[in-house]
């Protein structure tokens, strides 16, 4: 074993201090040093996507990043999605569409979709399919995953419109009030 280094990480909003070898990948650090085993390893060469996490909000392969590189970055893993036992809308969509069987690929797909939808909330089905092709799943045939991400996107759009309409109405009402 070689020299270790003190690093600080911020994962799911929690700060951590660790003394680790610099060669430890972010994935191994999350899994082995922080006990966040939701992030999986399926290939360790960037293709399967089971290790996908969010780095400053953007989906990234945790197997292709050393933990030392992740210092001062905001790391989010699958463990951050649910609120206690309350699943997130994306997680619920995965379950409703049977977008997981063995579930090994699932955390990666969830984080991939979470990061993507934040940037491209209006994505088309074709764009979603292309996104889903970033990761491998051996069980589902992908269609349910595409369905789930699309469904979640549409629901979010609808609730945003709802929210905008409400805000609009609010603004109008307060406008009237100001005018009166």
């Amino acid at each position, binding site marked *: *074993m*070689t020299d270790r280094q003190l690093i600080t990480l911020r994962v799911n909003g929690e700060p951590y201090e660790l003394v680790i*070898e610099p*060669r*430890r990948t972010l994935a*191994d650090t999350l*899994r*082995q040093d922080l*006990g*966040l*085993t*939701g*992030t*999986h*390893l*399926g*290939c*360790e*060469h960037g*293709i*399967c996507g*089971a290790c996908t996490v969010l780095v400053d909000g953007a989906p990234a392969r945790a197997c292709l990043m050393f933990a030392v590189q992740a210092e001062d970055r905001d790391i989010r*893993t*699958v*463990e951050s*999605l*649910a609120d206690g*036992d309350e*699943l997130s809308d994306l*997680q619920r969509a*995965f*379950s*409703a569409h*049977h977008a*997981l*069987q*063995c*579930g*090994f*690929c*699932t*955390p990666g797909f*969830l984080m991939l979709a979470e990061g993507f939808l934040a940037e491209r909330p209006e994505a088309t089905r074709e764009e979603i*399919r*292309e996104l*889903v*092709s970033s*990761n*491998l*799943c*051996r*069980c*589902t*045939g*992908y*269609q*349910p*995953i*595409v*369905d789930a991400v699309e469904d979640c996107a549409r629901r979010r759009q609808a609730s945003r419109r709802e929210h905008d309409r409400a805000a609009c109405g609010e603004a109008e009402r307060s406008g009237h009030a100001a005018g009166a």
Partner: protein
Amino acid sequence: MSAHTTESRHAPAGRYVGASVPRREDPRLLTGRGRFVDDIRIPGLLHAQFVRSRVASGVVTSIDLSAVLDVPGVVAAYTAADLDVIGITAVLDRPRTQFVPTEMPILARDRVRFAGEPLAIVIAEDPYAAEDGVEAAAVTYQVHTPVTSAEQALEPGAPLVHDEAADNVLLDVSMFATEGIDEVFAEAPCVVRVRTRTGRQNAVPLETRGAVADWDDRDAQLVVRTCTQVPHQVRTVMARSLRLDERAVRVITPDMGGGFGQKCVVGREEIAVAAAALRLRRPVKWIEDRKDALTASFLAREQRYDARAAFDRDGRILALDADIVCDMGAYSCYPFTAAVEPLMASAEMPGVYRVPAYRVRGRAVTTNKAPSAPYRGVSRPQYVMVMERLFERAARELKVDAVELRRRNLITEFPYSGVNNITYDAGSYLDSLNLCEQVLKDEGWYDLKAAAAAGGRHVGIGYSCFNERTGYGSGAFAQRKMSVVPGFDMTEARMDTTGSVTITTGTLSHGQSHETTLAQIAADELKLDISKIKIVQGDTDRVIYGWGTFASRSVVVGGSAVRLAAVKLAEKLRMLAAGLLDTTPDDVELDDGRVRRRDDPGRGLGYAELADIAYLKAHLVPKDLEPGLSVTATFDVFTDGTFGNATHGAVVELHKGTGRVEILRYVCVEDCGVAINPMVVEGQCRGGIAQGIAGALFEQVTYDEQGEPSATGFLDYKVPTASEIPDVAIHHLETPSALTESGAKGVGEGGTIGAPAAVLNAVNDALAPTGVELNDTPITPETVQRALEQAS
């Protein structure tokens, strides 16, 4: 058309079967709280990796591990000589003229038989140091010429992979040879021949193999957590190998990231890990990396067929003759042996067609490649491909529409006793074909094909018709002359004092949703809310016995055992309640968590009340009953099982400039009898079809002359992505099984079985104007491009 996604419905207690009950395994898997083998942490855990052979064939002249032990973090390193464990020998109940048993040592001793074979195990404080250690090993070899193809293996004078297997043949069996078949061929007006090769594939569960082994002094037991589809079989082999009593080994399967057959055999690495843990008296973990998973685990599917079929003038098939050679790689897998592929093909090849005369020769050949294990569908994807190509060829010769030709030959009267000594229970062979064709017509694909052809495009439509034997029991496996005969399943159902029920199953879900579907079956029998039922699997100390999950057996065999146990438990509840309610068991009934008098439904006892008496107030238990509420049941199949069936239809377009095969439409009409959970059934179909398409168009491991495999990663082993796998439209037919009480048939493999044939036929349909015919898989863009270019 039927909806593609099945809305989850809540079913009232008593009516779960048939409903798309939301999966009970989902919440933990969605939140990262699943527990896979690599997630297990034990204080003091050590990590193992293997020194593997760099050569495909040869003799190890020296292994020097002294430098390994000097690597910081390395704790130990062992060779075969250090561990002294017994190897794995899988046998069949057949004479040596038919089958040659061979041993797979846990670590290679002197001979190495494929590149990647484990030679030594290195144990270190962390996985990084373990790999540092592996690098420090010094091994020298006397290199032999490897055998890298079945052809080469069968050549006279070829080098021998196992000295005991002269000719490199591990199995040579002619299961059927109808008398007079040669005359039938000689006299038939139409004889067609198809020769096919299929590529060597890897099942690629996304979670690689792995194990954590730990000796427990208090229980005097080795506890091995490993991702296996067959925990009891791993226990048997491990105990033998380590010379322990079987009770001294406990095999536990945590959550498992897929298996597809690769994990239904006993691997050598987990035994080496256990042996190391035993020696060190410390917990040791091994997680296979992807490179090893692709090069040194179990592969499958590399087969050659030379098949002929004879037809009469009306297009009725008269005879089928097939010579099947399966390249099984370096070793026989336990318990199925290297015979698994040729025997499966030989036994089932006539499939859904009325074949009056049948001759088959099946051979398993050994080569210097990573060994083979069953992979989802086992041989059926291949022989269905061959059968469907034979029908397409014959249709061309006879100038009949290929769908019509199939219609004339499909089995329509059930039960049907085939030339292959199998009795098929009822299925919807003809209806599924008709519906599939109708769907593609109604959707306008035939019109599109015609228009495309007029415009110089290459669009083709292809079908495959097949059945899938599910519910292999001891009967079927004994017929194959296995000496370790899988088949039955055992369940224990136990109610606790709160009225909730724990049910064990010998099957092992790793994506198939048994925690949900088996609970649905039990909940209906027990008239109990599903939340009160917990399915327990994958622990040899908690599950009495079982054969795991493979061959689409779980719902048929395991599900039936669960149902029987639930029925028994219900009976026991009724007897107990009857005594306490002053009536007879026949005069009480189960209703939503209580047992009540039929004549006075207001009088009844809740399950918790009954359980309270059964355990805590045993003195109140009626005299002829035992206290407690636990029962066991077993289920086995001695008949030929039950056959699911399906027709697949694929529409493809070939792109001239690149040779790309684009799947424009994929329709699956499936019949698995009564679907316990339609959502899960559709999931099995879609996932299976994706794997079938993968085999048809993308995946293959080849070996060069030195026996080096072509793929060490997913860059070269091309598992298709969401952009290559099309959406699949699924239509359901329902022919209930008479074998199972629920009417369910298995559905685990069908998708994979049907897809290669449908895709291959569609490609050939698109190629028809060119006169080129492709029969080998995977079909690469390059071969398609060349075919199209030749024609133009």
